[in-house]
Each structure stands twice: as C-alpha cells, then as structure tokens.
C-alpha cells in the first residue's frame, strides 16, 4: 500500500511537471476546513455559487456543469441548466437527482453534510478576500484538471487589473469615498475584496481597517469623514438623510449609484474581477476614461 502511495505521489510530481495535469486521487483541505479526497476527475458538477460557476466556465469546464444555483446567470449558457435553489433554500433533492460526482458549495448554507451522506463528493470553495479570488481559481483548476487554463486566467486577470491600476495610480486627485452596500447602512472595509477594488480604482476609503470588512456604520461617522465621493446611494436618498446635505460629495454632486450589472459583478469574487474594477474605476475617475466613453 505504502509503495503504491509513494508511486502515485511520484507520478503526480512527474506528470504535473510535464503536462500540468492533475492526478487523482487528489486530497486537499477545502474552505470548510475539511480534508476532501477527489477519487477521479469530476465530470458531472453542480455549482451553487455564482462566482464558482463563472470561474469553472472561464477555465473551460463549463460543459461539465449539470446544475447551478438560481443566482448563477453568467455566462449565458449556464442559464439553461437545471436550477437547484439558492443559498437559503437549496433544493437538495434536485441536486441528488442530477447524479453529480461533485457539488461545489459555499461555506455557508450547510449543504456539505446532507450531500455527503447521500454519497456525493462536496467541496466548499469560497473566495472572500481579494487574494483568495486567485488562490481559489487555481484550486478549481486543479479540481477539474484545468490547471493550465486556471493559471492563464489568473495571469490575465492580474494583468488586466494592473492595466487599470496604472491609470488610477497616476490620478492627480484621489477622492475620499464612502461605498454603501446596504442602506442600513453597511459599508466595506479596505481589507475586504470589494474594499481592495475600491482602493485600486483610485479612491481613498473613509472606513478604517479597524472597523472590519463589512461594518455597520454610524451615520455621524460618515458626516464627520466628509467623503468627496459617495457610491451606492442615489442623490435624492442621500440628500434626504439628516445632516448629509453638508457632505462634500453632495455639495459637488458626486453621489453615484452603482449600475445593477456592475453591482452584480462587484459582488462576485470570480473571473470578472478586472471588469468590476474597470467599472468602479470609471465611476471614481470618469476623467481618466473619457476616451473610451464613446465605445
């Protein structure tokens, strides 16, 4: 037995060096902290996280998807796949009925246990920080034996991001910004993956690191911070809030709602990260992108 394992390991090293192919069984720790072993290359995959769905398609494994959650709507072809519910109302029976050999889940939603008991391999892949977007893309590449494509995607993403960053880095004035993701109000901290994008888009986030990644904000803090740019609220709503008329962004009219498509992409830590950054950078620094407005 020991010999076989050693041999397998050796083969894995050799093969990965030569062809960049994954060897199975593949064992690793997933985002639920469980040790998972994938016995063979998965061919029938259910994805219940839109970002995972997008990543799989971007690395050339879209044809292996046999079912997705009801929020997965990109790329176009996944919209025709059977829907297996959402995070809070997953349809486990539908998932089992599809006879998948792998279900990719979020670390929230408690799907791992019932599906495992039904004999289905479950892996939680759940990027939450900026860096995790890349590491999980590579992991998905290993899982579906598309390592080269995953590496290429990561390289492409990073260079697309760098291209936007070059523009915003040279921006003369970087506005202080408040980004509202929920009118309660909730905002984003600089270390969250959206916060990293906001900074890369050339804004100075008014939320300090100490407040956390997705803090509920005291309205008077926002008034005191007096941001030059407000994202995620419409001007009428913002103007109607007590004391907000005195905020610099409202005086200069720099209160910008996020278009709904961009909002969707911004919420998905997946292959459209660079696209999300570009959209955000256009809102923060419209003057830098004047040339391609006509496109």
């Amino acid at each position, binding site marked *: 037995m020991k010999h076989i394992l050693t041999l397998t390991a050796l083969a894995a090293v050799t093969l990965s060096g030569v062809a960049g192919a994954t060897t199975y069984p593949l064992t690793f720790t997933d985002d639920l902290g469980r040790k998972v072993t994938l016995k063979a290359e998965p061919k029938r995959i259910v994805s219940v996280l839109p970002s995972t769905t997008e990543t799989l398609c971007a690395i050339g494994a879209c044809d292996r998807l046999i079912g997705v959650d009801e929020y997965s709507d990109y790329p176009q072809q996944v919209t025709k796949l059977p829907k297996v519910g*959402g*995070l*809070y*109302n997953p349809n486990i029976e539908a998932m089992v009925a599809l006879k998948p050999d792998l279900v990719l889940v979020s670390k929230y939603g408690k799907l791992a246990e019932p599906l495992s008991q039904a004999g289905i391999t479950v892996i939680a892949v759940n990027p939450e920080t900026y860096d995790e977007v890349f590491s999980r893309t590579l992991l998905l590449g290993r899982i579906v034996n598309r390592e080269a494509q995953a590496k290429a995607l990561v390289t492409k993403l990073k260079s697309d991001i760098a291209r936007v960053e070059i523009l915003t880095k040279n921006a003369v004035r970087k506005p202080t910004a408040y980004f509202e993701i*929920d*009118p*309660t*109000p*909730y905002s984003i901290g600089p270390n969250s993956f959206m916060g990293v994008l906001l900074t890369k888009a050339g804004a100075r986030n008014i939320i300090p690191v100490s407040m956390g990644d997705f803090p*509920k904000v*005291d*309205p*008077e*803090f926002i*008034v*005191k911070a007096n941001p030059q740019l407000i994202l995620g609220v419409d001007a009428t*709503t913002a103007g*109607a*809030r*007590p*004391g907000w008329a*005195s905020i610099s962004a409202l005086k200069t009219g720099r209160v910008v709602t996020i278009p709904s498509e961009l909002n969707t992409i911004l919420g998905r830590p997946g292959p459209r990260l660079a696209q999300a950054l570009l959209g955000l950078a256009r809102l923060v620094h419209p003057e830098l992108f004047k040339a391609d407005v006509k496109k």
Partner: protein
Amino acid sequence: MEGAAARRAPGLALPLGTLGLAALLLLAVVLGTGLGSVTIAPLEVLGALWRGATGQALAGNDVIVWQIRLPRVVMGLLVGASLSVCGGAFQGVFRNPLADPYLLGVASGSALGATVAIVAGWPRALIPVTALLSALGAVACTLTLAREGRRFPPTRLILAGVVVGSVLSAATTALILRGEDRARQVLAYTLGDLGFSGWRDVLTVLPYAALGCGALLLLARALDTLQLGELTARSLGVPVERLRLIAVVAASLATAGAVAYVGVIGFVGLIVPHMVRLAFGPGHRTLLPLSALLGAALLVFADLLARTTPLSQVGIVTTLLGGPFFLWLLRRQTRD
C-alpha cells in the same frame, strides 16, 4: 406587587420621582448628544445648539450635533416614552403584568408592512406609511378575533394578539427569504434602529406620541379604579369596555407611530413600568408619567450603547439588557 410600595404616600412619590427621573433624563440627553463615534465637548454641544436654534450657519461638528445626534436623541425620548406609557397602560387595562405595546400584534403588523415596502424597493418615505397601515390592520384583526359581543375579555385579547402576531411574523419571514438581497435591511428594522432619524421623522412621530400618550395619561384614574376588579369598577361607574377600547386605540396609535420609524424595540414597554412600579408603587397617576420619563432616559442610554459598541442596534441592547431583568423580575414575584 401590592406591597409596601403601594401604600407609600402618593403625594410625595410623584414630585420626588419626577425630580430624580428628570435629572436622569437630562443626563441621558447631555451624554447622548455629546458622545458617539465622534466625542464632542459639552460646551461645543451647547454652542452648536445655540447656533442651530438662532439660525446661524452650522460649522464643524455642529451638523453632527444639531442634525444627526439631537434628532436621534429626541426620537429616542419619544419612542422610549411612548412604548413605556403604552406598556404601563396595557398592563393596567388587561390587568396582566406580561402585557406590552406589542401584545396586540402592533409590532408584527408594523414589521410586515415595512418588510413589504423594503422588499418591493419602495422609497424610504413610504416605509413608515405601510408600517403604520398594516399595524392598525393587525390591531383591527386582533380586536375582531377577540370580540365577544361588545366585550373584549383579556384572555381572548391576549390569545388573539399572540396568534395574529405569529401569523404576521411568519409572513414577514417568508418575505425576507424571498428578497434575500434586502434581508439585512429588513433584519435591521425588525431589530429596532434609531439611525437616520431626522427632524422630519421626529415631527411625524410627535403627534402620534402626544395624542396616544396624552389620552392614556388622562385615563390614569380610571385605570386605577379598574385594578379593584371589573365588577367593582363597573359599579363605581367606570365604563370598562369603552375604557378598554379607548386605551387600546390610543396605545396602538402611539406604538405604531414609534415602530413605523425606528422598527421593533423590544422589552422597553414591558420592563419600564415594572421598574417604576417597584420604586414608586402601582398607582397609574404616578406610574404612567414616571414610566414616560424613565423609558425616555433608558432608550437614549440604550441607543448611546448601541452607537458606541459593536451591539450596533438599540433593539439588540434593550433586548439583551431587558431579557435578564425580566426573568429576575419574574423570579422575584413568584418568591413573594
């Protein structure tokens, strides 16, 4: 409950209690206006108030004091006073120590209305309107269910309130699950929040609070008589059924007005009257006004805690502090 406190001279309890609680209230207002995510010195607070009141230009922290904190504090006062007076009155009307303003389904009705508005994405200005309408609808529903001829027997009323409340809460939960992306906003509402309370909101709540609480304060003497028992009260000339109806409508008005703007703030209406009763006796002529003072002060303190700690919402603070206190009260009463 009818211990020594009840026999204490009512003539002295009111002025003494009023004085003490008024001082507490003043402290709450001063601290509530001065402290927060930005600390503002008392002199600066006074300066800001003066500049705002005299119509001068607001500078620096003035905006925070005058347009954000003060309306928030005043809203806390109004809501705290309303919920507490209503709680005291409900406990008297139904002669039930567990009664509180949310008893008749007001809160769940309000929450459902607000949830509909939030999930549908209607403008913020419409949220209180739908909340108020559905709150009044819920009360009407409870009253219809509980009605027995022209009477509203307390047990039936409470049972009907619980049932209506549960059904409406289930509907609210179903809606929250359907509108996942707005779930947090709905959740914040159902947990009670004073954030974003402005002067316009205060002015909208004021008439509800004044009308509702005013009416209840006028009923205090009749409520005292009712404590002798329904039959005795009737024979003493108290129109029991009419008293009950007026009290319910008045309390619903005040509660719905408060709930519509700041959401569901638990336990204040239940606990404040008990605290006042323990300290100053059960007579409603002292109980109701002192509950207003204590409730107002407590809610401002609770909101201050919410703003400056990770508890983040006033409803969470009142429930966390109020729950254990209530259990202690229950144990104490059973031991007596």
